[in-house]
């Protein structure tokens, strides 16, 4: 599989967090990820979708778009909401920082489980996370 893409659109309901995880994991399986890498991808998706539900939409109705792409043997996942937005992205990415009495570990987990994370956000417009995961096996091959 050298190139492919898919898009999943869900409502901001906690019922759909598992759906997002399963869909992205199934798409990711087209690359040569280990089971443990697939688990890491699932955590990252779960964190990003949970954040959209809680922080972006405050448990109100909203749409979450999940883009999946395989490009050059890399998995690229984008998770986009049209909610509140983040005022200070630097701060949001710090361990333990939370505005909702949670763990403050969501973005930290995404950061450590994926090879790359970009956060793009505008207040009142929404947030887009772009994360990249490269199978360890193909990284070794490349060197």
């Amino acid at each position: 599989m050298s190139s492919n893409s898919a898009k999943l659109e869900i409502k901001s309901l906690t019922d759909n967090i598992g759906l997002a995880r399963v869909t992205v994991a199934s798409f990711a399986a087209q690359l040569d990820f280990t089971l443990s890498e697939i688990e890491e991808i699932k955590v990252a998706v779960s964190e990003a979708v949970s954040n959209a539900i809680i922080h972006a939409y405050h448990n109100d109705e909203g749409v979450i778009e999940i883009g999946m792409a395989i490009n050059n043997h890399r998995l690229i996942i984008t998770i986009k909401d049209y909610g509140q937005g983040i005022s200070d992205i630097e701060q949001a990415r710090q361990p333990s920082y939370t505005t909702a009495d949670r763990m403050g570990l969501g973005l930290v987990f995404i950061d450590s489980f994926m090879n790359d994370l970009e956060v793009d956000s505008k207040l009142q417009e929404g947030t887009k996370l772009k994360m990249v995961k490269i199978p360890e096996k193909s990284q070794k091959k490349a060197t």
Partner: protein
Amino acid sequence: MSLEIEREGVNLIVRVYGDLDLHTVDNLRMEIEDRLDQEVGIKNMILNLEDVDFIDSSGLGFIIGRYKRISNHGGELKLINVKNSINKVFELSGILKIVDVFPSEREALKAV
């Protein structure tokens, strides 16, 4: 996602089946809190995660919450059987510095 709760002396054994995420933790939290409110004389909690395949930071928050309530009352929280697939989340979070993990309920019961 379901829950099995059993009392053994001053210990509450809680067995969780399914995924621990934002969707499932609310119900679990309520069921456990209800039980803790009903029972008299519970001191420690043994949280059996043998059948938990997935956990994220919302699931960790749930465990930390139980830890706080139990330790506020002088009790101990022990975890059982953290699967390989969910291990990384535990390691990364630092939770293993405050909560011990045991391979079986029997060994956890011995340790409390």
